């Protein structure tokens, strides 16, 4: 059980890292738009005029 004395602080360190990374991401504006990314995935942007299919 004494391994917990190492593992739990390690987990807390990782947690702190995750929180820091998230704060940085929010601060840089990555989460300002919570609606578009959900639909962006369905939009292709590699269709060439000559490859246009009618599907």
């Amino acid at each position, binding site marked *: 059980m004494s391994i917990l004395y190492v593992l739990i602080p390690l987990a807390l360190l990782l947690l702190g890292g995750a929180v820091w990374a998230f704060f940085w991401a929010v*601060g840089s504006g990555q989460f300002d*738009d919570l609606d578009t990314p959900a639909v962006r995935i*369905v*939009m292709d942007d590699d269709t060439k*005029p000559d490859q246009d299919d009618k599907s």
Partner: protein
Amino acid sequence: MTTGADTCFHCALPVPAACKLTVEIEGEQRPVCCPGCKAVAELIRDTGMSRYYDLRDAPEPGVGRPAEEAAEWQVFDSPEMLKAFTESHDEMLEATIYVGGMYCSACSWLIETTLGKQPGVKSAEVNPITHRLRLRFPSGEASLSGYLATLANLGYQPQPLSPESTTRPEVTEQRAALKRLLVASLGMMQVMMFAVGLYAMDFQGIDPDMQHFLRLVSFFVTTPVVFYAAKPFFKSAWRGVVARKPGMDLPVSIAVGSAYIASVYATYTRGEAVWFDSVTMFVFFLTLGRFLEMRARHRSIDRSAALSSLLPNTATRIDSGVHSVVPVSQLATGDRVLIRAGEPIPADGILASGTTSVDEALLTGEARPRAKALGDELSAGSINLDGMIEMTVTSTGSDTTLGTISRLSERARYARPAFVTLADKIASYIVLALLVVATGVATFWYFTDPDRAFVITLSVLVVTCPCALALATPAAFAAAGSRLSQLRLLVTNGNAIESLSRATLAMFDKTGTLTMGMPRITAVFVTDNAWTEKDCRIVAAALEHASTHPLARAFAVPDKLPEVTSHEIVVGLGVRGIIDHREWRLGNTAFVGSGVATDDSTATHVFLACDENVVAWFELEDEVRPDAGQTLNKLRSLGIATALVSGDNRAAVESVAAKLAIDDTYCECTPEDKLAIIEGAQRRGDRVVMIGDGINDAPVLAGADTSIAPAHGALLAQTSADVIMLGDTLAPLTTAVEMSRKTMRIVRQNIAWAIVYNTLALPLAAAGYVPPWAAAIGMSASSLIVVLNALRLNRFE
């Protein structure tokens, strides 16, 4: 998504019969309404973006139609302009551009991909909710004007924003809320894990050191949750105490604060139990609730920015005879500005030279042009139709009439609905009662079983938290609002849902609401046998061809038009020109000199004369919307009576009323009369919904219980309206009524549930049968049930 054969493939406006333009997209010839739309559609096809047409939602007619003339963008390349409109980050410039004319996610895809292929563009990101494009490009190399021109060529109206105007309070608020939510959720998950360990040890026997260690790490994780994530609750509770209006946040703060302090004390003294798990779970669910409420509040679309995009970007200033193109933001009071025919007016001012007629539809919703003479006032945002004029600026920017309107709408957006405020007020009484009960419970247990007094009081405070009650109404309203905006209805006033659900009488304005607002020729009376009806139509079409008058569109014919020489537009009267050596005039009685008496006046009459002799007259009438009859029938089946109030004359109003079988009609009403009619109906006990679109309707809309304005009407009408209907149909009206009734049903269910839960849980907790962790689960579950019940509204069809 395809549009009908007679509407423009690109912008969905009706294609004039005379127009034979088509564009080949995905192997088919598609009709378009004008060379501008053809150019845009071809540009979209040639850049490989044809899928835009498959991806977009049903277009709002007219949106995406390119401007008649290319604006002068070069002015934005000057160093001062770049400095004013961009921010520089290590060799890169970043510009925020408001993109007018966007209406769905496909637009943002089209803009991002097209601009992304432009030389120099590092990144282009569009937020379809706020209609803002963030563009990054290297300084020195690329030109902002080129990007703006590309946007304009795609049929959008770009408007660069200065960096100060882009950092908006909503963004800051959302960022802070997201951080709090993350801290609370991660903290809760961690503490839960440690709590499982602690509970398991309770059953299996305990290693005291390990228990102390787990409590200690729980304390480390809980501390930021309490002091960072729960900070707004403490602040708001303190504000409530200072203002002597205790809110929901007071018992929340007492519960969180006391449980935290007691747990810290128990950890320090190695006491009986800790409640870190209850604390973090409680804070997490509260933060989540607040976050969802905030998102719903922000979702209402930023219409004030849409207003500023209606102003031109640049203006032509005259400094002692020298013309220079300057950005509108640099205009000052007293400047003299030149405005060419077809250009929008950049600021409020006084006509200083020339005469013209202007289209003030933006402000008044009135499509007919208004004649302006020397010394008349001109409003920013209206369009100069005929002559080249000079204007002396009297006010600019946010001081203009347009700016005032946008400020009013901004204020309306931040106001909280009275219904929610009422719920808060009730909650504050419940809170007081709870505090009294909790004190009573604490005192009772202190004298009977002092060891358990704290735990039981804590459970009472947590389990009876009126969160479910406080969430009951806002959660349902937020869900209804978001679903309604998907159904193309914008709710700008939260009260609207409540009042709409009780509506008993729907009053309609006529022009532009029940009718198309765009006249068509309904009859041609030829008085001179030398000409046929077809001749007259063709001559009229030829004469009106070059006119910008709104009635002119009605005259378009599919035939080849004869050539007109000496063509002249006489402002406010009509047009004249020479065809085949004969002088033709087309216009009103005064202009043509006709003595033809027209007894009924349901329609507008336009006369055609050849060499001073009247040969024909046209009757133009505003047609009833195709879906009006169906919508009104549905309203009646929902138990809502219909009425028509209009400023038009009796014959015109009654012909529409008869077609639609409207219950009551009132004609020749001034706005005061309309208001009096509404107040009369309200005294008789009716709940009135007013549907109108004109500027004159603004006070009337404000007087009704609920007001609805179509999005194509006057902006002032929209700012006084509770609900704005997007799109060009009346059908959303019945959806709104059904939805509002369903919402109120859900609100009642939620409130009933919250009351039942609290009355059951309170005695159990007071009797000591509920441990704090179960209280936290019970409180969270009851809030969750309320939110889930509200979310059912999202599936409303």
